[in-house]
């Protein structure tokens, strides 16, 4: 992409290069290389299919389709947060010896992880067709929209976690465990209707619920749930503001804690 403003061009180039680095390094010394980006979502799908369809015999129509419509988005979120928790700590020499916008490191992790999600879209296309759903133009509008909202949300969370992890390295271990808890607390493997009425508020205050419901509305029902879009966007902006503020404040002392 070409910009007329040199400074914007440079920042764009920097983000692209850092993302490319993050992505290229991931599979650099594997045999399958970039194919892993396709296999990863495919294998995840198979594992959950086996778990819920073969072993647990979940009684629900189109369960695989239902599950995957939220699972791929969740994978993008959780892997981004878990990896970016370490990314400041892992880039000490760069942070201490070169000046550049440090939050680009975090954005690059999330963008590199997004590749898995992009590879999962054709898989979803096939599964949708197998379940008798024909994707409409809603997909072209809804998927980029959902990606944008989720990117902003993930960036906010990851900025906060990564900068806190430079002060307390315990956080990266905590995140790994908490991520599991959040996974089961969010309606991903089960529908909202499966939660008893009294406890539904827990799912509703969970900002990931509306995000996952947004993905589901696009994939499963060929609609964009405006309600979920509104709540998810609102949450995303709030988290980004908090994350950025925390990052800006704490990065001033980064040289003392790294």
């Amino acid at each position, binding site marked *: 992409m070409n910009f007329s403003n040199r400074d914007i061009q440079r920042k764009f*180039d920097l983000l692209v290069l850092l993302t490319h680095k993050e992505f290229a390094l991931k599979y650099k010394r594997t045999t399958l290389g970039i194919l892993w980006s396709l296999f990863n979502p495919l294998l995840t799908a198979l594992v959950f299919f086996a778990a819920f369809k073969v072993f647990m015999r979940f009684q629900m129509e189109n369960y695989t389709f239902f599950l995957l419509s939220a699972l791929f988005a969740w994978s993008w979120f959780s892997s981004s947060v878990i990896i970016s928790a370490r990314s400041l700590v892992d880039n000490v*020499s760069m942070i201490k010896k*070169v000046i550049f916008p440090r939050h680009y490191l975090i954005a690059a992790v999330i963008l590199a992880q997004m590749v898995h999600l992009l590879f999962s879209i054709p898989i979803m296309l096939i599964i949708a067709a197998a379940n008798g759903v024909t994707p409409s133009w809603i997909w072209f509008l809804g998927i980029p929209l959902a990606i944008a909202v989720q990117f902003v949300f993930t960036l906010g969370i990851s900025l906060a976690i990564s900068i806190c992890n430079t002060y307390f390295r315990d956080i990266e271990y905590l995140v790994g465990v908490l991520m599991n808890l959040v996974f089961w607390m969010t309606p991903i493997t089960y529908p909202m209707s499966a939660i008893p009425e009294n406890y539904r508020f827990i799912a509703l205050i969970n900002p990931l619920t509306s995000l996952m419901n947004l993905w589901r509305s696009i994939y499963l029902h060929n609609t964009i749930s405006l309600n979920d879009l509104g709540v998810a966007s609102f949450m995303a902006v709030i988290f980004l503001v908090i994350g950025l503020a925390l990052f800006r404040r704490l990065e001033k002392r980064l*040289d003392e804690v790294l």
Partner: protein
Amino acid sequence: MGPVIQAVNLTKRYPAFKSPPGFKEWVLKLPFAFRADKKPLFTALDSVSLSVKKGECLGIIGKNGAGKSTLLSLLLGTSHPTEGTLRVEGKRTPLLELGAGFHPDLTGRENATIVAVLLGLTRAEAEKKMGEIITFSEIENFVDAPVRTYSNGMYLRLAFSVAIHTAPEILLIDEVLAVGDESFQRKSEAAILSLIKSGVTTVFVSHNLEAVKKIAHRVIWVHQGKIREEGSPETVVRNYHQFE
């Protein structure tokens, strides 16, 4: 013309390192966690003021641990002063730890591109300069191999070459003139001298007093976090010698 770097009363304190408390100690202290206890601090730099004019080369000398590198990282902006103000006009190019930002699994070319953009070029500019960077670093045959396969000298030469080819305006150098073999050392010294001659402002930290006398226009002697003496290279270096 006004100074390009203007620092007034720069002070940098670090929390003095103490080993993290054990779990028991931590629990015992918990009730007092909100009491503002005075944490021990280490003053690395104590109200240092300096200014550097455009095109000037300032040498900084002093013993190990005197605060030279702390001062340089403040000037660079990777570290923020605890007190004092700093104003810098222009793009700062660090020659601190060569190869910062290099990844062992990426090729020389990939690493050079990333670092060049980190240091202020656009990707297109970096790719245009790549020929020059590679020729200067003398690694033509290895540029598309991962840098983990490089010898130490090749690695440093490439890193040095990238940094000086990014159109620096203010060059901050920390003891990196001793790069590679003797012929490359001469070449890199000549490259820095020609950058200085072309009007690049330079701050230059070194233990190599001969190099300081040769390159610097003015020298600051830092001792125990303070400026002990400032003046012409000959005088300051002579007094520093006598002091030692």
